[in-house]
């Protein structure tokens, strides 16, 4: 979770800089210096190879797609419904995370909770649970024959194979990523800046709005983006508790089962196209926010 720590490191590091030495100079000169020697060239080539291997799946996807196959898959009747379902459930999931998990992340970062280690261990525990296990346990927790299931049955709701179930599964799969990312984002804000804002006359809520949130926002955006990608790709818990309504991952799975690899591939592209732009936008935005701070 190091992405959120970087804004403060950049801002804090710049403060201690001697005058007339902009922060970017050190980084800019690192590139050419690495290329100058043989070992430098080797390390750049090595890094490039690893980078290409990591990107391999994406490259493969584009080499195996043809325009006609995309068109025929996407124009089949009902082909786009899972996309809509995924976008809707993902949006609701993000809203839930933002409103309920942001305060938790803030309290974790500031250490205002008693026994902070236990709280953190709890979040880590949900991160380490395999999604499939989460799905199984969710059935026993919110299924129709449980207390919760009975309670929402009075409202004519059900938490199995419904949109609600899909959202619950996605929240469970993405929440720990968001909480840990947001915690790191808040932890990167120097508490002394918040104290300074308070001494300048701002009550805590105003300090949060004017100082904490803007300073943590690049990290928060990245955490939300990661959570979005997790929610879009949620499969393990979803297949157990929310087989219907179909989201994109399940559509890929069933297409793969029923008609084979070739027809599943276009949906993989759709999933990527839907899941990636938000993280990329968040990345670009946080990079711009940081460069603006450098002046």
């Amino acid at each position, binding site marked *: 979770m190091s992405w959120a720590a970087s804004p403060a490191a950049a801002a804090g590091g710049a403060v201690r800089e001697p005058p007339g030495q902009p*922060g970017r100079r050190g980084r800019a000169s690192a590139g050419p210096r690495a290329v100058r020697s043989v070992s430098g060239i080797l390390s750049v080539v090595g890094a490039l190879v690893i980078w290409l291997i990591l990107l391999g799946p994406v490259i493969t996807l584009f080499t195996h797609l043809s325009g006609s196959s995309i068109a025929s898959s996407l124009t089949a009747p009902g082909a786009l419904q899972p996309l809509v379902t995924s976008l809707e459930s993902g949006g609701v999931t993000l809203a839930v995370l933002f409103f309920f998990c942001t305060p938790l992340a803030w309290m974790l970062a500031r250490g205002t909770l008693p026994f902070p280690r236990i709280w953190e261990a709890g979040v880590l525990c949900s991160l380490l649970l395999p999604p499939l296990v989460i799905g199984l346990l969710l059935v026993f927790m919110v299924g129709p024959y449980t207390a919760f299931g009975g309670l929402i049955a009075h409202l004519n709701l059900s938490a199995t194979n419904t949109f609600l179930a899909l959202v619950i599964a996605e929240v469970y799969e993405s929440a720990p990523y968001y909480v840990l990312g947001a915690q790191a984002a808040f932890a990167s804000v120097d508490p*002394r800046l918040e*104290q300074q804002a308070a001494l300048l006359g701002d009550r805590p809520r105003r300090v949060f709005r004017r100082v904490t949130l803007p300073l943590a926002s690049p990290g928060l955006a990245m955490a939300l983006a990661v959570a979005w990608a997790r929610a879009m790709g949620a499969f393990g818990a979803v297949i157990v508790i929310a087989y219907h309504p179909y989201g994109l991952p399940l559509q890929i799975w069933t297409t793969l089962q029923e008609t084979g690899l070739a027809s599943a591939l276009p949906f993989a592209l759709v999933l990527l196209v839907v899941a990636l732009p938000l993280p990329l936008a968040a990345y670009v935005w946080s990079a711009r926010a940081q460069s*603006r701070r*450098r*002046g």
Partner: protein
Amino acid sequence: MLRADVEVDRRDFTVRAAIEVAAGERLALFGPSGAGKTTLLEAIAGLVQPRAGLIELADRTLTRTTAPRVLVPAWQRRVGLLRQDPGLFPHLSVRDNLAYARSADPRGTELAEVARALEIGELLDAMPARLSGGQQHRTALARLLLARFDALLLDEPYSGLDAVLRRTLTALVVRLVTERAVPSVLVAHELADAQSFADRMAVLDQGEILQVGEPDQVVLRPCSARVAELVGYLGFAPVPGRPGVLAGVHPERIAAGAAPERGLVLTGRVAGSRPAGAAWEADLLLPDSGQDGALSQQAVRGRDGRPGLAATVTCRLADRPGADGDTMTVTVLDPPCFSQDGDAVDGHVREGSRP
């Protein structure tokens, strides 16, 4: 008038201190690192909560732990705090930093005025990361001025800067504090910083105020051997003819040659010398004193507040001392005297000398 009489619990000890600063007065809290100076400032600023005590500023009660209890939150105290880190908001331009406080003049005429006075008028649109250390501190100071504080607390704000800049900024703060007639408290662990700022100095150690007085009085007449150590006395030497009395030896309060009418004359051998600034620093090895039997070859540091006897005395001399092993006589100018228990003893050491 700022009045604070508080007990603040810390992990290692409890800070028990009472200070009183008149409007326009500048008090320096001097003491070693970890003496509780910053804790005291933070209690006044409302950042830490004292276990017991009373803090009053002008006619407002900021903290009172007896009934009726009062704890004014930090954002209503109107107390300015400057730290070593200027604490500028990195996501706001200099102008937005200056105008941060709600009480800052919204039309910006005062902002422009203060920015010009502090020589940051050209930088209003820059981001803080672009500023030099001195400019950042000027901006932090200007921001405080625009926020209209009733007291100014300085927590070693300029200790990371070079000497010239430190002097300029300190002089600037002194001028502004005097102009606005607010009480101000500076925390310092460098004696020179405390002296250049304050017109009164309090020596703090282990959470307790040991002595309060004018800076030169505290340095020349420390009230105990511990205070003497803190303000730079490096050793203690017995005073001939006054058994049980020890004279504090400050390396900068030493003149070459014997001048019994000016203080305590010490004779010994040069054990080493080195250049120190524009002067020389020499270690003077004192002979074993047979009559007192108290001097050992090893330097003894004061413990439990009792002065320890020094076998070598460090002196600052304008002229280069002789070679190692040469005999040298120096005069410790009008040294403060202490009993064996470390308490200050009245009387001057003059016209006495040691064999």
